[in-house]
Protein backbone atom coordinates (compact mmCIF):
# COMPACT_ATOMS: atom_id res chain seq x y z
CA UNK A 1 0.00 0.00 0.00
CA UNK A 2 2.79 2.36 0.97
CA UNK A 3 4.71 1.44 -2.14
CA UNK A 4 1.69 2.14 -4.29
CA UNK A 5 1.13 5.58 -2.82
CA UNK A 6 4.84 6.35 -3.28
CA UNK A 7 4.56 5.46 -6.97
CA UNK A 8 1.41 7.60 -7.24
CA UNK A 9 3.15 10.53 -5.58
CA UNK A 10 6.20 10.21 -7.81
CA UNK A 11 4.16 9.99 -11.04
CA UNK A 12 2.01 12.91 -10.04
CA UNK A 13 4.94 15.09 -9.11
CA UNK A 14 6.72 14.30 -12.35
CA UNK A 15 3.61 15.27 -14.27
CA UNK A 16 3.28 18.49 -12.33
CA UNK A 17 6.95 19.40 -12.80
CA UNK A 18 6.68 18.40 -16.44
CA UNK A 19 3.80 20.78 -16.92
CA UNK A 20 5.74 23.48 -15.14
CA UNK A 21 8.78 23.16 -17.37
CA UNK A 22 6.91 22.37 -20.58
CA UNK A 23 6.47 25.48 -22.74
CA UNK A 24 2.87 26.58 -22.88
CA UNK A 25 1.01 26.68 -26.20
CA UNK A 26 -2.24 28.43 -26.98
CA UNK A 27 -4.96 27.90 -29.52
CA UNK A 28 -6.28 31.10 -31.07
CA UNK A 29 -9.70 31.59 -32.60
CA UNK A 30 -9.43 34.71 -34.74
CA UNK A 31 -11.87 37.27 -36.12
CA UNK A 32 -12.87 37.18 -39.79
CA UNK A 33 -13.19 40.24 -42.01
CA UNK A 34 -13.49 38.76 -45.48
CA UNK A 35 -13.32 35.73 -47.68
CA UNK A 36 -11.01 33.86 -50.00
CA UNK A 37 -11.16 35.17 -53.56
CA UNK A 38 -11.37 33.24 -56.81
CA UNK A 39 -7.73 33.95 -57.70
CA UNK A 40 -6.49 31.87 -54.76
CA UNK A 41 -4.81 28.56 -55.49
CA UNK A 42 -6.05 26.07 -52.91
CA UNK A 43 -5.56 22.33 -52.66
CA UNK A 44 -8.69 21.07 -50.88
CA UNK A 45 -7.66 17.40 -51.05
CA UNK A 46 -5.82 17.71 -47.72
CA UNK A 47 -7.13 19.01 -44.42
CA UNK A 48 -6.55 21.76 -43.52
CA UNK A 49 -6.43 22.80 -47.20
CA UNK A 50 -3.05 23.97 -48.42
CA UNK A 51 -2.91 27.38 -50.09
CA UNK A 52 -0.31 28.20 -52.73
CA UNK A 53 -1.57 31.68 -53.57
CA UNK A 54 -3.92 33.82 -51.48
CA UNK A 55 -6.50 36.22 -52.82
CA UNK A 56 -8.32 37.84 -49.91
CA UNK A 57 -11.42 39.99 -50.34
CA UNK A 58 -12.28 42.32 -47.47
CA UNK A 59 -15.98 42.61 -46.69
CA UNK A 60 -15.55 44.55 -43.45
CA UNK A 61 -13.08 47.03 -42.06
CA UNK A 62 -10.46 45.14 -40.02
CA UNK A 63 -10.26 45.98 -36.32
CA UNK A 64 -7.66 43.51 -35.01
CA UNK A 65 -4.14 43.18 -36.40
CA UNK A 66 -4.40 39.40 -36.68
CA UNK A 67 -7.34 37.73 -38.41
CA UNK A 68 -8.21 34.70 -40.42
CA UNK A 69 -10.07 33.55 -43.44
CA UNK A 70 -10.15 29.77 -43.30
CA UNK A 71 -7.67 28.21 -44.00
CA UNK A 72 -5.40 31.31 -44.01
CA UNK A 73 -4.18 33.82 -41.46
CA UNK A 74 -3.46 37.47 -42.18
CA UNK A 75 -1.77 40.27 -40.27
CA UNK A 76 -1.77 44.03 -40.60
CA UNK A 77 1.42 45.65 -41.96
CA UNK A 78 2.14 46.92 -38.43
CA UNK A 79 2.07 43.42 -36.95
CA UNK A 80 3.97 42.07 -39.97
CA UNK A 81 6.82 44.48 -39.16
CA UNK A 82 6.82 43.38 -35.51
CA UNK A 83 6.85 39.70 -36.49
CA UNK A 84 9.60 40.12 -39.06
CA UNK A 85 11.83 41.73 -36.41
CA UNK A 86 11.13 38.90 -33.93
CA UNK A 87 13.06 35.64 -33.69
CA UNK A 88 9.93 33.50 -33.73
CA UNK A 89 9.84 30.43 -35.97
CA UNK A 90 7.19 28.51 -37.89
CA UNK A 91 5.87 31.16 -40.24
CA UNK A 92 6.62 33.19 -43.36
CA UNK A 93 5.23 36.57 -44.31
CA UNK A 94 4.03 36.45 -47.88
CA UNK A 95 2.30 38.80 -50.23
CA UNK A 96 -1.36 38.23 -50.98
CA UNK A 97 -3.72 39.70 -53.54
CA UNK A 98 -5.91 42.01 -51.47
CA UNK A 99 -9.19 43.48 -52.67
CA UNK A 100 -12.30 45.01 -51.19
CA UNK A 101 -15.77 43.79 -52.02
CA UNK A 102 -18.94 45.65 -52.94
CA UNK A 103 -20.15 45.14 -49.37
CA UNK A 104 -17.00 46.86 -48.07
CA UNK A 105 -17.46 49.82 -50.43
CA UNK A 106 -21.11 50.15 -49.49
CA UNK A 107 -20.40 50.03 -45.77
CA UNK A 108 -17.30 52.25 -45.96
CA UNK A 109 -17.64 54.34 -49.11
CA UNK A 110 -14.61 56.55 -48.46
CA UNK A 111 -12.22 53.96 -47.11
CA UNK A 112 -9.39 52.64 -49.34
CA UNK A 113 -8.64 48.92 -49.52
CA UNK A 114 -7.06 47.85 -46.21
CA UNK A 115 -3.54 46.46 -46.34
CA UNK A 116 -2.74 42.98 -45.11
CA UNK A 117 0.08 40.47 -45.23
CA UNK A 118 -0.41 36.72 -45.45
CA UNK A 119 0.92 34.90 -42.39
CA UNK A 120 1.82 31.56 -43.93
CA UNK A 121 2.09 29.16 -41.01
CA UNK A 122 4.43 26.30 -41.73
CA UNK A 123 5.64 25.28 -38.28
CA UNK A 124 4.71 22.20 -36.27
CA UNK A 125 2.00 22.76 -33.71
CA UNK A 126 3.16 22.61 -30.07
CA UNK A 127 6.82 22.65 -31.06
CA UNK A 128 7.45 25.80 -33.09
CA UNK A 129 6.20 29.28 -32.19
CA UNK A 130 3.54 29.10 -34.91
CA UNK A 131 1.75 25.95 -36.02
CA UNK A 132 -1.64 24.60 -37.00
CA UNK A 133 -3.55 21.72 -35.48
CA UNK A 134 -5.40 19.06 -37.49
CA UNK A 135 -8.50 21.31 -37.58
CA UNK A 136 -6.57 24.23 -39.05
CA UNK A 137 -6.57 26.29 -35.84
CA UNK A 138 -3.62 28.54 -35.12
CA UNK A 139 -1.41 27.28 -32.28
CA UNK A 140 1.16 29.71 -30.89
CA UNK A 141 3.74 29.65 -28.13
CA UNK A 142 3.51 32.00 -25.15
CA UNK A 143 6.41 33.94 -26.59
CA UNK A 144 4.59 34.33 -29.90
CA UNK A 145 1.42 35.43 -28.12
CA UNK A 146 3.35 38.10 -26.24
CA UNK A 147 4.67 39.39 -29.58
CA UNK A 148 1.20 39.30 -31.16
CA UNK A 149 -0.12 41.31 -28.23
CA UNK A 150 2.11 44.20 -29.33
CA UNK A 151 -0.57 44.65 -31.97
CA UNK A 152 -4.29 44.54 -31.30
CA UNK A 153 -5.79 41.07 -30.83
CA UNK A 154 -8.75 42.01 -28.67
CA UNK A 155 -11.31 39.98 -30.57
CA UNK A 156 -9.22 36.80 -30.43
CA UNK A 157 -10.40 33.92 -28.26
CA UNK A 158 -7.52 32.20 -26.50
CA UNK A 159 -7.62 28.56 -25.35
CA UNK A 160 -5.06 26.23 -23.82
CA UNK A 161 -3.63 24.18 -26.69
CA UNK A 162 -2.75 21.28 -24.37
CA UNK A 163 -6.46 20.83 -23.64
CA UNK A 164 -7.79 22.05 -26.98
CA UNK A 165 -11.53 22.60 -27.32
CA UNK A 166 -13.38 20.80 -30.10
CA UNK A 167 -14.69 22.74 -33.09
CA UNK A 168 -18.20 22.47 -31.61
CA UNK A 169 -17.02 23.89 -28.29
CA UNK A 170 -15.41 26.83 -30.11
CA UNK A 171 -18.64 27.34 -32.05
CA UNK A 172 -20.81 27.40 -28.93
CA UNK A 173 -18.36 29.75 -27.23
CA UNK A 174 -18.58 32.01 -30.29
CA UNK A 175 -22.37 31.96 -30.19
CA UNK A 176 -22.32 32.81 -26.48
CA UNK A 177 -19.80 35.64 -26.98
CA UNK A 178 -21.74 37.02 -29.96
CA UNK A 179 -24.95 37.13 -27.95
CA UNK A 180 -23.23 38.97 -25.10
CA UNK A 181 -21.53 41.48 -27.41
CA UNK A 182 -24.64 42.22 -29.43
CA UNK A 183 -26.77 42.60 -26.32
CA UNK A 184 -24.23 45.08 -25.03
CA UNK A 185 -24.30 47.25 -28.17
CA UNK A 186 -28.03 46.94 -28.97
CA UNK A 187 -29.95 50.12 -28.30
CA UNK A 188 -32.31 50.12 -25.38
CA UNK A 189 -35.97 50.02 -26.34
CA UNK A 190 -37.46 53.49 -26.34
CA UNK A 191 -39.77 54.29 -23.46
CA UNK A 192 -43.15 55.60 -24.40
CA UNK A 193 -43.84 58.93 -22.80
CA UNK A 194 -46.95 59.03 -20.65
CA UNK A 195 -49.53 61.45 -21.86
Amino acid at each position, binding site marked *: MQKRSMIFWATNSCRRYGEFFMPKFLLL*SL*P*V*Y*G*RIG*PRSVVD*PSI*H*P*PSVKRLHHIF*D*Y*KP*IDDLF*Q*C*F*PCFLVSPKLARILSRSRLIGFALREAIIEKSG*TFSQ*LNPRLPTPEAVWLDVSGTARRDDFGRDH*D*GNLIVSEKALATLKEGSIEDTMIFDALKPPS*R*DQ*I*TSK*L*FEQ*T*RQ*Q*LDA*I*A*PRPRRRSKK
Partner: protein
Amino acid sequence: MGLFTARWVGRNPKKAFLFLSAISATGVFDGFPPGEITPVDELAAWGKVMRCAPAEAKEAVIWMKYQAPLLVRAFFSRASRKDYAETFFEAFPKLRGKVWVHHAVEQQALDKYPGLITEEELNSLANLRGIPNEINPQVHLRRIRRLWDNFYAKHPNGVKKEELLEYAKKIDDLLGDKFVPPIR
Protein backbone atom coordinates in the same frame (compact mmCIF):
# COMPACT_ATOMS: atom_id res chain seq x y z
CA MET B 1 -75.83 41.28 -47.14
CA GLY B 2 -74.05 38.01 -47.65
CA LEU B 3 -70.33 37.75 -47.42
CA PHE B 4 -68.25 36.87 -50.49
CA THR B 5 -71.04 37.58 -52.95
CA ALA B 6 -70.18 39.49 -56.12
CA ARG B 7 -72.00 42.49 -54.68
CA TRP B 8 -70.00 42.35 -51.42
CA VAL B 9 -66.75 42.05 -53.34
CA GLY B 10 -67.74 45.00 -55.49
CA ARG B 11 -68.39 47.11 -52.43
CA ASN B 12 -65.35 45.93 -50.45
CA PRO B 13 -62.59 45.31 -53.00
CA LYS B 14 -59.79 45.88 -50.52
CA LYS B 15 -61.15 43.46 -47.94
CA ALA B 16 -61.85 40.88 -50.62
CA PHE B 17 -58.34 41.17 -51.99
CA LEU B 18 -56.87 40.87 -48.53
CA PHE B 19 -58.93 37.78 -47.80
CA LEU B 20 -58.06 36.18 -51.11
CA SER B 21 -54.39 36.97 -50.60
CA ALA B 22 -54.40 35.39 -47.16
CA ILE B 23 -56.02 32.29 -48.60
CA SER B 24 -53.50 32.18 -51.45
CA ALA B 25 -50.65 32.39 -48.98
CA THR B 26 -51.73 29.08 -47.51
CA GLY B 27 -50.93 27.46 -50.82
CA VAL B 28 -54.52 26.48 -51.58
CA PHE B 29 -54.39 27.93 -55.09
CA ASP B 30 -50.86 27.20 -56.19
CA GLY B 31 -50.24 24.04 -54.18
CA PHE B 32 -47.17 25.47 -52.46
CA PRO B 33 -47.82 25.81 -48.74
CA PRO B 34 -45.76 28.15 -46.54
CA GLY B 35 -42.12 27.18 -46.31
CA GLU B 36 -42.13 25.19 -49.54
CA ILE B 37 -40.13 26.13 -52.60
CA THR B 38 -42.37 27.99 -55.01
CA PRO B 39 -41.71 27.83 -58.75
CA VAL B 40 -39.75 30.69 -60.31
CA ASP B 41 -41.67 33.64 -58.97
CA GLU B 42 -41.31 34.44 -55.27
CA LEU B 43 -45.03 34.53 -54.71
CA ALA B 44 -45.96 31.79 -57.16
CA ALA B 45 -49.20 32.28 -59.06
CA TRP B 46 -49.91 35.51 -57.25
CA GLY B 47 -46.48 37.00 -57.88
CA LYS B 48 -47.46 39.34 -60.69
CA VAL B 49 -50.68 40.36 -59.01
CA MET B 50 -48.93 40.93 -55.69
CA ARG B 51 -46.46 43.36 -57.28
CA CYS B 52 -49.25 45.84 -57.90
CA ALA B 53 -51.24 44.86 -54.84
CA PRO B 54 -51.84 47.16 -51.88
CA ALA B 55 -49.15 47.03 -49.20
CA GLU B 56 -51.42 45.36 -46.61
CA ALA B 57 -52.25 42.46 -48.93
CA LYS B 58 -48.61 42.01 -49.82
CA GLU B 59 -47.59 42.02 -46.17
CA ALA B 60 -50.24 39.46 -45.28
CA VAL B 61 -49.08 37.04 -47.97
CA ILE B 62 -45.40 37.53 -47.23
CA TRP B 63 -45.94 37.05 -43.53
CA MET B 64 -47.84 33.82 -44.02
CA LYS B 65 -45.60 32.39 -46.72
CA TYR B 66 -42.19 33.47 -45.44
CA GLN B 67 -42.02 35.11 -42.05
CA ALA B 68 -44.21 32.60 -40.22
CA PRO B 69 -42.30 29.48 -41.40
CA LEU B 70 -39.01 31.26 -40.63
CA LEU B 71 -40.06 31.33 -36.99
CA VAL B 72 -39.48 27.61 -36.79
CA ARG B 73 -36.97 26.79 -39.52
CA ALA B 74 -34.67 28.24 -42.15
CA PHE B 75 -35.52 27.43 -45.76
CA PHE B 76 -35.00 28.53 -49.34
CA SER B 77 -37.63 29.70 -51.76
CA ARG B 78 -36.76 30.56 -55.36
CA ALA B 79 -35.87 34.05 -56.54
CA SER B 80 -36.93 35.40 -59.88
CA ARG B 81 -34.09 37.96 -60.10
CA LYS B 82 -30.44 38.36 -59.15
CA ASP B 83 -30.87 41.70 -57.40
CA TYR B 84 -31.60 40.29 -53.96
CA ALA B 85 -31.89 43.70 -52.29
CA GLU B 86 -34.68 44.57 -54.74
CA THR B 87 -36.43 41.26 -53.91
CA PHE B 88 -36.30 42.13 -50.22
CA PHE B 89 -37.44 45.74 -50.62
CA GLU B 90 -40.23 44.73 -52.95
CA ALA B 91 -41.54 42.53 -50.17
CA PHE B 92 -40.88 45.11 -47.45
CA PRO B 93 -41.03 48.51 -49.19
CA LYS B 94 -41.20 50.44 -45.94
CA LEU B 95 -37.72 49.18 -44.98
CA ARG B 96 -35.96 50.64 -48.03
CA GLY B 97 -32.93 52.61 -46.80
CA LYS B 98 -33.46 51.50 -43.22
CA VAL B 99 -31.91 48.03 -43.26
CA TRP B 100 -28.91 46.20 -44.61
CA VAL B 101 -30.01 43.13 -46.59
CA HIS B 102 -28.07 40.07 -45.58
CA HIS B 103 -28.10 36.42 -46.74
CA ALA B 104 -28.94 33.90 -44.01
CA VAL B 105 -26.92 31.23 -45.87
CA GLU B 106 -23.97 33.25 -47.15
CA GLN B 107 -23.20 33.88 -50.81
CA GLN B 108 -19.85 32.18 -50.19
CA ALA B 109 -21.67 28.86 -49.86
CA LEU B 110 -22.10 28.87 -53.66
CA ASP B 111 -18.32 28.74 -54.17
CA LYS B 112 -17.48 26.68 -51.09
CA TYR B 113 -19.92 23.89 -51.92
CA PRO B 114 -20.44 23.99 -55.69
CA GLY B 115 -23.63 22.37 -56.90
CA LEU B 116 -25.23 22.24 -53.48
CA ILE B 117 -27.49 25.25 -53.82
CA THR B 118 -28.54 27.42 -56.72
CA GLU B 119 -28.29 31.17 -57.07
CA GLU B 120 -32.10 31.34 -57.21
CA GLU B 121 -32.31 29.67 -53.80
CA LEU B 122 -29.55 31.82 -52.33
CA ASN B 123 -31.12 35.10 -53.43
CA SER B 124 -34.64 34.04 -52.52
CA LEU B 125 -36.72 36.03 -50.08
CA ALA B 126 -36.73 33.19 -47.55
CA ASN B 127 -32.94 33.45 -47.33
CA LEU B 128 -32.83 37.23 -46.86
CA ARG B 129 -32.74 39.08 -43.55
CA GLY B 130 -32.74 42.79 -42.76
CA ILE B 131 -30.26 44.22 -40.26
CA PRO B 132 -31.32 47.69 -39.09
CA ASN B 133 -28.83 50.43 -39.95
CA GLU B 134 -29.05 51.98 -36.49
CA ILE B 135 -27.68 48.89 -34.72
CA ASN B 136 -24.45 48.95 -36.72
CA PRO B 137 -24.72 46.24 -39.36
CA GLN B 138 -20.91 46.05 -39.55
CA VAL B 139 -20.69 44.54 -36.08
CA HIS B 140 -23.46 42.07 -36.79
CA LEU B 141 -22.12 41.11 -40.18
CA ARG B 142 -18.59 40.62 -38.80
CA ARG B 143 -19.90 38.36 -36.05
CA ILE B 144 -22.04 36.37 -38.48
CA ARG B 145 -19.11 36.02 -40.88
CA ARG B 146 -16.97 34.62 -38.07
CA LEU B 147 -19.64 32.09 -37.16
CA TRP B 148 -19.88 30.96 -40.78
CA ASP B 149 -16.09 30.75 -41.13
CA ASN B 150 -16.13 28.35 -38.23
CA PHE B 151 -18.74 26.28 -40.05
CA TYR B 152 -16.66 26.15 -43.25
CA ALA B 153 -13.65 25.06 -41.21
CA LYS B 154 -15.69 22.24 -39.73
CA HIS B 155 -17.05 21.15 -43.12
CA PRO B 156 -14.20 21.79 -45.58
CA ASN B 157 -15.05 19.07 -48.09
CA GLY B 158 -18.79 19.26 -48.40
CA VAL B 159 -21.99 19.45 -46.48
CA LYS B 160 -25.68 18.62 -46.84
CA LYS B 161 -28.16 21.36 -47.65
CA GLU B 162 -30.02 20.53 -44.43
CA GLU B 163 -26.85 21.16 -42.41
CA LEU B 164 -26.44 24.59 -44.01
CA LEU B 165 -30.04 25.47 -43.19
CA GLU B 166 -29.73 24.10 -39.67
CA TYR B 167 -26.74 26.37 -39.05
CA ALA B 168 -28.60 29.33 -40.57
CA LYS B 169 -31.45 28.56 -38.16
CA LYS B 170 -28.99 28.58 -35.24
CA ILE B 171 -27.87 32.07 -36.28
CA ASP B 172 -31.52 33.09 -36.67
CA ASP B 173 -32.15 31.82 -33.13
CA LEU B 174 -29.25 33.95 -31.94
CA LEU B 175 -30.00 37.15 -33.83
CA GLY B 176 -33.56 36.76 -35.10
CA ASP B 177 -34.92 39.27 -32.60
CA LYS B 178 -32.53 41.91 -33.95
CA PHE B 179 -33.54 41.42 -37.59
CA VAL B 180 -36.21 43.55 -39.24
CA PRO B 181 -38.79 42.18 -39.69
CA PRO B 182 -37.99 40.13 -36.58
CA ILE B 183 -38.15 36.38 -36.98
CA ARG B 184 -37.86 35.46 -33.28
